[in-house]
């Protein structure tokens, strides 16, 4: 809550000020705000590029010849091909731009799937408890410790047997990534649910005769989801990295079906030895930028949710409207960015 709200609790900020990211934007100051804004701008550019790919890209992702005949392979950057052509004879710039679209599609599918499954499982598991809860916790902990890329490889083999078209490839990559993410959402939502279940308002709801489904959906779910924007941004960036990793290992989507940065980097591997830099540098930079943008947003959200890391506006304004919200129940994410393990089992370390 902004500081003004703390002093006048009856007046609530307008609805858009309370939206997840907008709220934190208002809360942030100085360097933190700079990082958040930079992240939002880069992410917006990434999304816009993905949406406007057909307009922005000079050629198609699978296009091999222009009006003047074939593009030719491994041509250095020129007026016609601003970033040169690949070993397969594709236009690098076009594939970089189209690649953002593939990445975005995978992110959307992966995050949507893992949120739905993870939140549902976490809610049910945390709310009802019992043996189902115990089994799910052990399984999710085990999967959580699994090297994510290996799990993704196994899933990619299962789903597509290694070779795929656009839809198949995107779903293979997205589902592979989903399997890695579900334990994260599960853990967070479950822990929140267990905590909220003990709150007085849940008790009151039960007293006035609300059913389990209503309590779960109306009282618990709404309060358990506040940390999701943070995990979501971090997972989105991880999704890009996993997709690229899969592509790099040869589980990419065929170049005629879609553009994929990891696949292009794989093909550029041998170019590097002969000094051809443009085929690898640009798709790589695209990955770095996209991940950077999403990570900056995620990290800023993480810091703002952590009272130890949040920069205060000024000492006088120090009064907080609400108690600082720990991102992970029972603690804070100390190392939200360690790639695979977005969430530390903080409950194990007594702080």
């Amino acid at each position, binding site marked *: 809550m902004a500081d003004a709200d703390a002093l006048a609790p009856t007046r609530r900020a307008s609805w858009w000020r309370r939206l997840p990211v907008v709220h934190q934007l208002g809360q942030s100051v100085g360097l933190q705000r700079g990082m958040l804004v930079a992240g939002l701008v880069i992410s917006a550019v990434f999304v816009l590029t993905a949406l406007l790919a057909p307009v922005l890209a000079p050629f198609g992702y699978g296009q091999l010849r222009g009006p003047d005949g074939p593009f030719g392979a491994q041509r250095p950057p020129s007026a016609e091909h601003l970033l040169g052509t690949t070993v397969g004879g594709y236009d690098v710039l076009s594939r970089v731009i189209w690649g953002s679209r593939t990445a975005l599609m995978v992110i959307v599918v992966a995050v949507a799937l893992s949120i739905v499954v993870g939140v549902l499982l976490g809610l049910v598991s945390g709310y009802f408890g019992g043996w189902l809860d115990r089994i799910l916790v052990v399984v999710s902990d085990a999967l959580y410790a699994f090297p994510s890329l290996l799990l993704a490889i196994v*899933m990619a083999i299962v789903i597509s047997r290694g070779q795929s078209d656009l839809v198949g490839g995107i779903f293979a990559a997205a589902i592979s990534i989903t399997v890695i993410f579900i334990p994260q959402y599960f853990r967070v939502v479950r822990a929140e649910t267990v905590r909220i279940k003990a709150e007085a308002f849940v008790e009151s709801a039960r007293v006035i005769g609300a059913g389990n489904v209503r309590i779960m959906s109306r009282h618990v779910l709404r309060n358990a989801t506040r940390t999701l924007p943070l995990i979501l941004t971090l997972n989105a*960036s991880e999704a890009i990295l996993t997709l690229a990793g899969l592509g790099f290992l040869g589980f990419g989507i065929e170049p005629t079906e879609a553009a994929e940065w990891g696949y292009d980097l794989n093909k*550029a591997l041998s170019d590097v030895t002969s000094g051809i830099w443009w085929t690898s540098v640009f798709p*790589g930079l695209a990955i*770095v930028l996209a991940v950077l943008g999403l990570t900056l947003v995620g*990290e800023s959200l993480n810091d703002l949710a952590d009272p130890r890391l949040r920069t205060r506006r000024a000492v006088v304004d120090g009064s907080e409207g609400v108690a600082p919200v720990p991102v992970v129940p029972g603690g804070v994410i100390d190392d939200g960015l360690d790639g695979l*393990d977005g969430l530390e089992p903080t409950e194990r*370390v*007594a702080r």
Partner: protein
Amino acid sequence: MLIFPTIFILVTTVFVLMRSTGDPITASQGGRLPADQLAERIHLAGYDRPVFTQYLEYLGGIFRGDFGTTLSDNRPVTEVLTTYGTATLELAFYALLVAFLVGVPLGRRAAYFRDKAPDAILRVFAILCYATPVFFAGLLLKLVFSRWLGWLPVAGRASTGTEIRMQRLNKPSGIYLIDAIQTGEGAAIVDVLQHAVLPAAALGLLTAGIFLRLVRTNVIGTLGSGYIEAARSRGVPESRLLRKHAYRPALIPIITVMGMQIALLLSGAVLTETTFEWKGLGFQLAEYLQARDFVAVQGLVAVLAVIVAVSNFIVDVLAALIDPRVRY
């Protein structure tokens, strides 16, 4: 003591997933062999028996340390592990070294200059380390240091001459640095180290970013705690507070996180080894993937999962020994 159920769940997951869409021979050879030959090979390998029988056999095998035999070159997975495991171990060791040497001191500096320019630069550096896929970092390093500057070799673990010399040793350890020292030739040692620099940097920087953040967060956390305040009020200078009082407790969580890094390190090793043709487990896994040898993939992934689970367990025990606050 969750290690045994964890291992059980991991190997079961691998089995169920890999077998959920059919047997590995159809998967790798389907369409390339006539149907009757295919059926015969499936029969010979025992894949036409009930899945549950095969599962029990698989579990029994793992219990005895048998993770199956590869299809493409007919080697036991454990042999692949012992042949190539040392290379991965060596790479992981170098990478952790880089991560420590880069991440920990920089994290301390970032905490010291909290919210000032050096902190901002270091944090962006940390995020960049994370945001750069290891294989892209590897490609860039190769491009700059091998191709343009010509300082370091492009790929491999050693030059051919050195490798031949090391194979002549009567007991090669497989860890090239040790073997090179055994040959007693300075040139061999330099050669091996030169080959290790770029892969170690690529994989190490990924982890360095994580260490940097972690140390920063924890030092900031401990700097705000009561005993620091007490020390400060006694007039202990700020630099000493950081160096002596806040820094050491902040290192404890690193040990726990190291355990989690092993999983990341292994994932990263697969990609780094492919980039640098570093002939370790990850490189081998990628080769088997290319050859569509899914028995080998299943075996290797199961082995790696067990390694990760065991090392996580060891790290947890270590953390509990070092930090009395951790209790299970």
